């Protein structure tokens, strides 16, 4: 009897072990209404894979890098999302695992890469120094947005008069800026100068248009001592200091400002902005996204392309299962596109994009000419230094030349040149 019960209990134990659940802890950023899609996808995956438990942790976007970093020190994360500005740090410091083709049912990494649009993984931050570590969760690019109702009210024609060059952009801005008692009550253009990332992203396009190479650390450094770089930089700062079309004190967040009708143009909106606009008083039929203006003698480059990828942490125990989960997570682009969120997976029906995203042709066309952002592990510091350079000119009356010269020193310190 004793031997039998021992045998039975061992069998019982073993069977319990084999159905012991594997846990995959996933960190993602919160953005309604997409949170529900992610949670539902996790539930569906668990239904298909009963021995796996997916624990999704949603944090505010700004907190995500900190959260993932601390989780990595404590061994508390297996997969995570990260924007392409931050992901190079994680890839460069060896915290991410390479793509495992078998988890996707493929034989080579290149076959996996080909499941997405050409260049998508690079533009969304999943590629670093020759290796692929992430798969895209979102890909967006910036267009310029104009309030056509304001234009009409000022006697402009929303078809003919939309700005195609930066010169026109400035002139339209001047016409559309409103003042009362010398205080600007409506900006002709606006950008968030508090958070360095936004000026950085606009400058990126301006610099690339002037023939500079802001897709590499060396290129960025070089641009700071060129005439083209100075011109790009000054074009931007002049909007506030000389052209009188931008008062940073009117409001902080240009996405909100545009939605509230307090600025007539802005340069940092992707396809997702349509959904955002619905929460504000300005109506969809009062605005229009257009191609980024160009310099008359500049290169044909549009607004920046950026995105988010999802990664497997190197410390994850079962990397193959982790990649299976991520592949599943990223296999439903049709669920996201209805909200205007674009995932560059080849399986996505192109007609859906055109259907759900008004003026999609602007974004889609521009994507080819979008500027690819620098992939640098020092991004946070570089972005901060550029933001400081802009603030020096705007708020400290420093000249553009002096500010760029100081920026050059800062960059040399950061890159330890």
């Amino acid at each position, binding site marked *: 009897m004793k031997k039998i019960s021992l045998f039975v209990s061992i069998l019982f134990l073993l069977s319990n072990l084999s159905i012991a659940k594997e846990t995959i802890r996933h960190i993602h*950023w919160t953005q309604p209404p997409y949170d529900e899609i992610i949670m539902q996808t996790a539930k569906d995956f668990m239904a298909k894979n009963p021995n796996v438990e997916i624990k999704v942790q*949603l*944090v*505010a976007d700004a907190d995500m890098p900190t959260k993932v970093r*601390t989780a990595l020190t404590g061994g508390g994360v297996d997969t995570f999302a990260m924007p392409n500005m931050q992901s190079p740090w994680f890839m460069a410091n060896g915290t991410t695992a390479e793509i495992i083709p078998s988890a996707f049912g493929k034989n080579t990494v290149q076959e996996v890469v080909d499941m997405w649009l050409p260049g998508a993984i690079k533009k969304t931050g999943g590629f670093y120094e020759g290796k692929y570590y992430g798969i895209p969760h979102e890909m967006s690019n910036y267009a310029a947005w104009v309030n056509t109702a304001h234009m009409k009210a000022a006697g402009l024609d929303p078809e003919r008069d939309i700005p195609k060059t930066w010169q026109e952009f400035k002139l339209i801005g001047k016409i559309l800026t409103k003042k009362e008692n010398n205080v600007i009550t409506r900006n002709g253009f606006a950008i968030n100068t508090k958070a360095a990332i936004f000026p950085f992203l606009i400058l990126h396009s301006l610099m690339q248009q002037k023939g500079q190479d802001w897709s590499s650390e060396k290129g960025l450094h070089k641009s700071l001592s060129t005439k083209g770089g100075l011109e790009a930089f000054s074009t931007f700062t002049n909007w506030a200091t000389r052209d009188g079309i931008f008062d940073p004190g009117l409001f902080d967040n240009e996405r909100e400002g545009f939605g*509230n009708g307090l600025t007539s143009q802005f340069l940092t909106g992707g396809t997702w902005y349509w959904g*955002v606009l619905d929460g504000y*008083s300005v109506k969809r039929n009062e605005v229009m996204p257009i191609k980024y203006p160009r310099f008359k003698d500049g290169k044909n480059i549009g607004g920046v392309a950026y995105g988010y990828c999802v990664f497997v942490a190197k410390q994850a125990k079962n990397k193959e299962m982790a990649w299976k989960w991520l592949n599943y997570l990223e296999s439903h682009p049709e669920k996201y596109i209805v909200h205007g969120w674009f995932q560059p997976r080849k399986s996505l029906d192109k007609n859906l994009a055109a259907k759900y995203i008004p003026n999609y042709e602007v974004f889609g066309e521009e994507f080819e000419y979008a500027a690819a952002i620098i992939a640098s592990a020092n991004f946070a510091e570089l972005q901060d230094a550029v933001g400081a350079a802009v603030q020096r000119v705007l708020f400290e009356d420093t000249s553009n030349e002096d500010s760029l010269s100081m920026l050059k020193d800062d960059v040399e310190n950061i890159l330890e040149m």
Partner: protein
Amino acid sequence: MIKIFKYILLVSLTIMFLFPFFWMVVSSFKPTSEVLAIPVNILPKNWQLDAYTNLLNYSEYDFSRYFLNSIIVTFFAVLLAVILCTTAGYGFAKYKFKYNNLYFIIVLSTIMIPFQAIVVPLFILMKNLGLQNSYLGLIIPESLTAFGVFLMRQFFYSVPDEIIESARIDGASEFRIFWNIAVPMAKTAIFALIIFHSQWVWNLLLWPLIIISSPEMRTIPQAIALFSGVYFTPYPEQLAISVLACLPLLVIFVFLSKNFTKGITLTGLK
């Protein structure tokens, strides 16, 4: 006439201090587009409860659970803080033991280093102790307040030594003296400590953010921060939950400050 002036002054002060809060409450009844609109409208055009009802509808955000977490953590952290601060404050103030001043400076030095500097080492320590993502992991670090020790020490100084001495002569143990004589005398200070510390713990964001990994363990400040979206912040909802979040603290404050009693009862010397 001075009285009228006094009331005018009080009302002006109240307006200055309360106006932002008033704006918060009133804006939680507006739709998002109205909150930051210019020209400024202080009162809503159409009062709506949407922000509050929406809070109940966010499927992954279990606000009542977050409230519960905040209540549990705050209650125990404040309790532990009061215990540690009153005992330590009393010991530092009323006894001349070896290295008293040195120990006090060491304790006080813990508020001289910014919390951000110790977050990471503390996190690693908590992980090694197995306390991450737990109530204890929140309660213990959040009960630490050298300011509280400082506060109690200053107040215990004003308890006359004669009372203590006479109690000793009467044969009372040190702990009895502490518990039955000194603590009642410092009631006002203890209430002040409870008010300060509970609002500090309740509004803490950085530490819970680092140590909590499962959504069920979130505290209220994290929930409020979650509303600040990348592209879009639903202000009415964020303000609604901020208003709800400060109500418990307001209740604690009103209740305790009513109980600020006057004077020291000089029982021993009568």
